[in-house]
């Protein structure tokens, strides 16, 4: 520390001493804050963020965590170990330090009875916790994710553990090669996740229901899901797909080969939106990576792809027809309903691909094609009706014109006749 800074600190302490001596008794309870705020060094850092700290907002004081006597105006008395002052806990002490309250159900109940108190227990089972117990100084502790004196509720959008901020918070360490290299871990997960269908939904579209790091790995208990558990992780949302997979011939095959379930075809962090190209035997088809030509699996993949393509083709053609009818100004509500049904069946059929059995998915395709044909028929009917209306109008207009012609002839004929012989003088002259 430079001489100037030291002089500055001395002056601050002196001024602080005077301020504390002159402060009324009521304000003396805030002596920790008052003293620390007066410093220009790191010592004042907690006071700069503590206003939005959830602990302070709920009435937890500095002394409740750090001990000491906040009513004492004298620094030595306030920070007297004899009065329970424990000072700043080291990084090694943090998990236990937080757990003093957060693992105590009877204490936490008075703040929030719904708040779990098993975070510390879970932390010890996590990859972070295990390494921590082995003395690894790199691993995350409570403050790595929740901050120290500016702890916000996880429901606060500014919190590092708010759902849309979680990937970025994890990436603080997991994208840092200087840390990850020491543990032989990759640093690409966040980048991959951000490109994935899940990352796009959460980070770009703000879909808070989309999965983030903790959805698959857990938060306090964060760990790799492992080969066996991956299916269960995905099934949290993709339950039908998982059920279909569990009953499919792939289940036993994956178990026998020690392969994870979903990850083999879809990947893990970089899960792209699935396309129909992944199905079948084409160059991008994942089926063909395992199933050889001539095998039953190869034939099934081919058959399923053809069925999906057929439904898509019929749906596309029906959509074009219905759109054309709508552009002509015809009522297409029912046809659009049928299109939606067909589209829903296509989605369902794509899900049933995971049964890896053509007979299981065939009913969806058949129903979808039937709905598409209904929509197509209604669209064609609407276009036909459009032309019928116009042709009908023109025929009617020709008839009306003929009628006008006839009437004009009649008018001419009658105009040439002399007025009524016994008629009175024209009444139009009145008054």
């Amino acid at each position: 520390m430079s001489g100037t800074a030291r002089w500055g600190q001395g002056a601050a302490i002196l001024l602080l001493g005077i301020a504390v001596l002159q402060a009324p008794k009521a304000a003396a309870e805030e002596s920790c804050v008052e003293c620390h705020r007066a410093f220009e060094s790191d010592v004042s850092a907690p006071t700069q963020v503590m206003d939005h700290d959830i602990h302070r907002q709920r009435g937890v004081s500095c002394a409740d965590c750090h001990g000491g006597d906040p009513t004492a105006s004298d620094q030595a008395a306030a920070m007297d170990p004899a009065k329970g002052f424990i000072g700043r806990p080291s990084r090694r002490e943090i998990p236990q330090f937080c757990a003093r309250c957060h693992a105590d159900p009877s204490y936490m109940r008075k703040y929030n009875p719904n708040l779990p108190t098993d975070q510390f227990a879970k932390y010890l089972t996590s990859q972070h916790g295990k390494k921590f117990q082995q003395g690894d100084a790199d691993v995350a502790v409570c403050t790595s994710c929740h901050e120290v004196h500016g702890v916000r509720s996880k429901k606060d959008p500014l919190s590092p553990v708010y759902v849309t901020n979680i990937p970025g918070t994890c990436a603080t360490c997991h994208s840092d090669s200087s840390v990850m290299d020491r543990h032989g871990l990759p640093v690409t997960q966040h980048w991959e996740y951000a490109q994935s269908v899940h990352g796009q939904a959460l980070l770009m579209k703000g879909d808070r229901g989309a999965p983030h790091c903790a959805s698959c790995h857990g938060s306090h208990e964060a760990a790799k899901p492992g080969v066996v558990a991956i299916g269960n992780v995905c099934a949290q949302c993709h339950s039908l797909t998982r059920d279909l997979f569990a009953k499919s011939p792939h289940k036993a095959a994956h178990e026998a080969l020690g392969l994870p379930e979903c990850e083999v075809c879809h990947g893990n962090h970089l899960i792209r939106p699935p396309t129909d190209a992944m199905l079948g035997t084409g160059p991008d088809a994942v089926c063909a990576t395992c199933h050889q030509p001539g095998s039953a699996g190869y034939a099934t993949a081919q058959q399923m792809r053809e069925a999906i393509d057929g439904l898509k083709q019929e749906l596309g053609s029906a959509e074009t027809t219905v759109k054309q009818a709508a552009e002509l100004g015809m009522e297409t509500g029912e046809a659009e309903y049928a299109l939606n049904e067909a589209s829903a069946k296509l989605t369902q059929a794509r899900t049933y691909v995971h049964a890896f059995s053509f007979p299981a998915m065939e009913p969806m395709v058949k129903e979808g094609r039937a709905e598409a044909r209904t929509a197509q028929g209604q669209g064609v009917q609407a276009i036909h009706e459009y032309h019928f209306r116009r042709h009908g109008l023109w025929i009617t207009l020709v008839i009306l014109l003929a009628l006008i012609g006839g009437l004009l002839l009649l008018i001419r004929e009658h105009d040439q006749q002399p007025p009524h012989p016994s008629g009175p003088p024209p009444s139009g002259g009145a008054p």
Partner: protein
Amino acid sequence: MALSERLRAFFRARYPLDQLTELAAHKTVPLHRHSFWYYWGGITLLLVAVQIASGLLLLLYYRPSAEAAFESVKFIMTKVEFGWLIRSVHAWAANLAILAAFVHLTSAFFLKAYRPPRELTWVTGVCALFLLLGFGFTGYLLPWNTLAFFATKVGTEIAGIVPVMGPWVQRFLRGGPDVGDVTLTRFFWFHIAVLPMCLFALMGLHLLMIQVQGMSKPLSVKEERAIRFLPNFLLRDLVAWVIALGIVLCLSVYWPATLGTKADPFGSTPAGIAPEWYFLWMFQTLKLVPGHVLGIEGELIAVALTSVAGAVLVLVPWLDRPARAGRSSWIVAALGVLGLAYVIGMTVYAHFFAGAG
């Protein structure tokens, strides 16, 4: 004896048919350079007849309740054979009937057809136009779509501005504090029962007086030329009717009536709510009058001015004193042109420049 002869003899024995046929045979219509305007009354009559016919057909399927009205109109438009045409014809003929009645009224004004002894023909005609506007206002709500619902809300709010009677009239129209199911039932009752009865009575009187007094001839026309009503004028009337029918059909096929979305009474008012075109000039007047003028509420002033304009229109035969004396007055003509220019100008302004279109 032929059947037709026997029938004629049967009625002749009971009713003075000969007098009627004599009257018809000798009825004439003046023929001059303004005769064109005589056809507009007949066109209005035809369009009203089209309204009755198409309205009766719509009644076969229409269900007057907030739950079912929209769906029943949708059913008419999509499922009933030629239902789309019937509804479109009803919607278009309604607009054209009001337009034709307006042209008829304007021509009668400028040709001074209201001169004694035809004052009551004018009064019944003006009142019939008001009734047609009433048909338009009540019929607009019946499909129970979003646009109609909120336009009716605004329209009935305006009725509430009138002092003393206003709140009562508004409550009577709405059937409660707000537009709802009861309003629809009431509007339906007005549209198919009350207004038609009143219109039949007024048009009956209007036509009777025309038959008794004959058609008025403009002051500027001095010649005594005339054509027989039967069949010469009636045939010309028929030509006009066929043309009007053709126009209604073309409009109905090329621009069929739309339905929009079902009204949601709890939804927020959509942007661009505007009444039908024939109310636009009044709506625009309401919007243009400042909030307060000399301490009086602006809306009240606009409603009062419109009401006074309506009353003046009814009383034109007595207010135009020169016409009563058989003279034409440029002041009355100028006032008429000004009034017409205001109505047309405001309608065009509201439709094209104030976003009401």
